[in-house]
């Protein structure tokens, strides 16, 4: 989903930067508040950032015969709500833009918008929706992570189609083109990300019950039966 350096016209680059900036600023505020009010959550915050770091470094082959990578933003969005992921995702994207020539500074705004804002919000939204209808935790986590991953790549496709509409078929034609590059490639990877996020959440349920309860991921009324696991 990395739009390469210089590959968005200046007007688009500025517009996406302006759209992303308030989310990142708001994210920094909620992150500092979280750390100040609950210093004990720093570790888990670090782990969520680490998860994004690992997953966005893994380039996996896909059914379309090309490679892409998961985003890892669903986990942190489910645990700490999406604003925090706006920051952690931006840090990951900055690392890749500066050291790996992957993505770029001029396209950072657009990439942050897709991976660190829309992805986490969409994934979190699905997760909350499913939880409201009493869908089991791990199923909701799977679809949360799946949607966070896939929606990121859909946004990238829209961003590129807006900047480079097809000369004959216009925006929709270009959207089909970029969508077939990004979105279809991403479906199996989004499944992988969903499964890995479920795996980490299972380990967290085992190891960090108190933390998950405080964050509202585990409901207090459900903890009674699991006294042995401690």
């Amino acid at each position: 989903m990395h739009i390469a350096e210089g590959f968005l016209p200046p007007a688009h680059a500025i517009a996406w930067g302006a759209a992303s900036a308030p989310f990142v600023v708001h994210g920094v505020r909620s992150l500092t508040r979280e750390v100040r009010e609950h210093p004990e959550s720093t570790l888990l915050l670090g782990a969520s950032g680490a998860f994004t770091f690992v997953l966005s470094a893994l380039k996996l082959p896909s059914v379309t015969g090309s490679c892409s990578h998961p985003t890892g933003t669903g986990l942190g969005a489910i645990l700490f709500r999406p604003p925090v992921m706006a920051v952690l995702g931006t840090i990951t994207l900055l690392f890749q833009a500066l050291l790996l020539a992957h993505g770029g500074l001029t396209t950072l705004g657009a990439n942050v918008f897709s991976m660190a804002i829309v992805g986490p919000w969409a994934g979190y939204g699905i997760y909350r929706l499913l939880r409201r209808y009493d869908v089991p935790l791990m199923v909701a986590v799977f679809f949360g992570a799946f949607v966070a991953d896939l929606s990121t790549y859909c946004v990238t496709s829209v961003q590129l189609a807006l900047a480079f509409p097809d000369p004959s078929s216009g925006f929709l034609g270009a959207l089909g083109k970029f969508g077939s590059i990004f979105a279809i490639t991403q479906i199996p990877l989004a499944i992988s990300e969903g499964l890995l996020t479920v795996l980490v959440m299972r380990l967290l349920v085992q190891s960090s019950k108190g933390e998950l309860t405080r964050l509202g991921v585990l409901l207090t009324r459900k903890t009674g039966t699991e006294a042995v696991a401690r």
Partner: protein
Amino acid sequence: MKRGTKINLLLLLAVAALAVLPLALGLGDHKEEPFTGADAEAETAITELDPDYEPWFSPLYEPPSGEIESGLFALQAAVGAGALAYYFGLRRGRRQGAARAQEQQGAARTPGHDGAEGA
């Protein structure tokens, strides 16, 4: 093996299968260069849609070779994996320490009913 561990292993196996299947089934065979990055394919698509487009900014730093680049990607994954391993290791150690302390206390007193959540 415990049931939970089995499920975790199955999850990992499924992820591995999803990654290996496209390679095993030769799904990249129709391409000149199989399994290139989708990001690079998007760049190609851009130059097809708008042949006149010139990237107006280039990366400040570019890894001088594929080896250096893959090394940096491995570094990124290693840093992340290391931090995750630290987290889970620390949690496990704390849990074991707490359990041991409880045992020692329990040896001194008669064991009461469980349910005191030490969160």
